[in-house]
């Protein structure tokens, strides 16, 4: 039996890295008493995998991990959530769980990691006056105007230097959606406002600064980090800024459904079909 767990990572825990998150969950699951399955071999390890590593400094309401269970005895989702949430520290919170039946003999096991195709981010300036051009503050209106212009380009080339060669990559096709407000983002991507609120619940509020909502390609095929988009934008317009001037918040991770549209890694259908112990 496989379960998929959705969780938030926020507050002081934005300072711990991906490997430490894994170590934390291994211990938390041991403490919870959940009957997790172990790999074979001399030093067995828990069968657990994460959808997409989150960089240090980024908060999130859209983290996912898959774990394999040998058995479980939860009659409700709440019991399941409580059992795990009792093991969390300040900065981790489990928000959702679904169970998946074991794959049929000819079916491939699809892990969260292999499914990820896109991610939503909210990026906020930590201070309204930290972006400069020629030593004067760039106003938020101006930033928005420039960003629209930036996005209206047909191609956004960036230079990517690998060991062997220099490569020009066009970023534009991997930026699926962008907005300056949650309302607009909700409309563009048909997400309910309630849903959006949950997706940015643990994002730090910096007041009336400049924010951008982005949907970017994520996962094993093409993974675009939001700072790459911002840096390219800043460079193109000659804007300067201090280090760590933007707070990134991951809102959600998506996979593709049969019609090639993006659906969250835990989708409505899976929630409805969840199996509980009898």
């Amino acid at each position: 039996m496989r379960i998929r767990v959705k969780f938030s990572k926020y507050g002081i825990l934005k300072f711990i890295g991906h490997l430490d998150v894994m170590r934390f969950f291994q211990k938390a699951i041991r403490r919870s008493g959940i009957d997790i399955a172990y790999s074979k071999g001399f030093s067995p390890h828990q069968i657990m995998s994460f959808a997409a590593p989150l960089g240090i400094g980024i908060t999130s309401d859209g983290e996912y991990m898959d774990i394999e269970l040998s058995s479980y005895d939860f009659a409700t989702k709440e019991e399941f959530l409580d059992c795990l949430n009792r093991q969390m520290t300040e900065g981790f919170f489990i928000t959702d769980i679904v169970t998946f039946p074991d794959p049929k003999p000819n079916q491939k096991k699809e892990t969260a990691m292999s499914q990820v195709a896109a991610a939503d981010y909210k990026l906020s300036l930590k201070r309204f006056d930290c972006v400069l051009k020629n030593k004067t503050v760039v106003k938020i209106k101006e930033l928005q105007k420039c960003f629209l212009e930036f996005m209206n380009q047909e191609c956004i080339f960036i230079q990517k230097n690998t060991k062997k060669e220099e490569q020009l990559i066009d970023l534009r096709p991997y930026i699926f959606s962008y907005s300056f407000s949650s309302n607009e983002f909700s409309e563009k991507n048909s997400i309910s406002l309630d849903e959006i609120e949950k997706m940015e619940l643990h994002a730090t509020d910096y007041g009336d600064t400049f924010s951008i909502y982005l949907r970017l390609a994520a996962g094993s095929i093409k993974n675009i980090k939001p700072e790459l988009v911002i840096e390219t934008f800043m460079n193109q317009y000659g804007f300067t800024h201090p280090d760590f001037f933007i707070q990134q918040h991951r809102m959600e991770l998506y996979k593709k459904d049969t019609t090639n549209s993006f659906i969250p890694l835990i989708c409505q259908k899976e929630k409805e079909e969840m199996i509980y112990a009898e």
Partner: protein
Amino acid sequence: MASQNNLKKERNLALSDEILMSVEKPARYIGGEYNSVMKDLSTVDIRFAMCFPDVYEVGMSHLGIQIIYDMFNRWEDTYCERVYSPWPDLDQILRKEHIPLFALESQDPIKKFDFLGITLQYEMCYTNILQILDLSNIPLYAIDRTEDDPIVIGGGPCAYNPEPIADFFDFFYLGEAETVYRKLLDLYKENKAAKKSKKQYLEQVATIEGMYVPSLYKPSYHKDGTLEAFTPLHSNAKTKIRKQVEMQLSDTYYPERPLVPYIKTVQDRVVLEIQRGCIRGCRFCQAGMVYRPIRERSLDYLKELAKKMLESTGQEEITLSSLSSSDYSHLEELVYYLIDEFKGKGINICLPSLRIDAFSLNVMAKVQDIKKSSLTFAPEAGSQRLRDVINKGLSEEVILKGAKDAFESGWNKVKLYFMLGLPTETKEDVKGIALLCNEIAKEYYSIPKEKRNGRVQITASTSFFVPKPFTPFQWAAMDSKESYQEKQQFLKDTIREQLNSKSIRYNWHDAKTSVLEGVFARGDRKLSKVLVNAYQKGCIFDAWTEYFDPEKWEEAFKEENISIEFYTQRERKKEELLPWDFIDVGVTRTFLWNQYELSKKEQVTLNCRKHCSGCGAGIFGGGVCTEARNEEGESLYSGSVTVL
């Protein structure tokens, strides 16, 4: 969850996002680990900051602090928080931005606390003590502090010679923490209620056994620099201070819910201290003397603790901790219990400091991956003669037999630890290290080829012997750096000449830090100014090779007109008053001197279970000292008398 997160509100951090993002491993400074304790400040009377003066990953691995943290926080009126040395990257930022050093839990400045307790685990962390005080805005010298500064307490093994750092502390707690801390805190509360001064408090502290208040004593020196007298300045100051010992180790404080760090630490596992003290009496070993008498924890207590700690932490590894695990009388029962109970749950069991015999090989084959693990021996000296000098009861025969048994069970890696510079050491003794390594390799190739597991790998490591207080070698001269380096080179060459030299790897420890360790281990109060001088030159993290700067240290000694050789290379006379003579650890000076004499005659002394040598630890009235004995004087405890 009562013990953690009972205050759900988000904590504010002492450091900004920008700072935390720009330093290495920001998780060192955020606290909030699972099982860390959050208390409402309005409900506590005493705030205690417990410090390990090294980086987080090292400090978090220390059992002593976990015991104290748990003990203090069980008391409703006390809130114990933790503080570790900020790594040099953050150190610079704190200085530049004038950010005071803070405790991990509340993120409040250390200066706000009632107490700052600093554990003294090794001499090379002394400049880090100054760093902690300085970054906390607490004056370095105790004499310069006011009523607004926390009371600074030192404890741990280096407190057995507190003199080089005496000027920086308000008092030292000598011995084990479980016994009188409650008394000290009650006294503090009374004192505070009566609006008495810090000075008055310290005078009261001096009346409690084991507490040393340096400001109440004055050392005076002979012309040659040796100690002439150590004079109490107050009627409450005892002339002899006896260490504290917890005699009820199965009925005392022990963390049932140890902290679980987010980042990987040095000791990233549950630690089960099975006993305290050692019966062996190796003459170089301070721990073996100052923790006497050996006291075991009961099997039932340990079983219960192991279960509770594994369940409350979710750790996947448990290690047994003691100076010599094989001497624990219920070891087999305990180890088989751990294997039966936890091995199936994917929990690793670490068994350090085990003697190699049929039992340990059997258990290790069960708990370790033979192909990957190595066996460790600590003969400490290369020749039987020198092993007799240091009273290391490990014979060549036993080592070779152990190695052979291990090879036959599938192991092919052996690690060997030695010291160079031991008293009376000759070239022959050094050569003995190379010969022993070669013999071990020979054992390997003596077993049939089909039973071997590839090539044998022998790793020999040498460290530079540093004489320590409260050991029989406390009077001995330390070898010179040049002589040590010569021996190192000689050993390297001799290993190369061995038939099996290709199977032997040799690692050695740098001599420069050992010399400094030698100075501070047996130093006196004159050294505090050298420490301050070196610190002001920028010396911190001296235990870390990348930060140790021997030139700055040399300058500091020169500028303060202090001779290194006076402390290291001088054999003390029997009648010389030693800076730590005012401390009573149970083991007597007479016993230590007799041991020193015996060492020169290459005569060994039997271990405590074989025969009581009347070391003086019997005064504590427990442990091995009161075990029933047969007519030959052997302890009858559990019927398992060890052979060595």
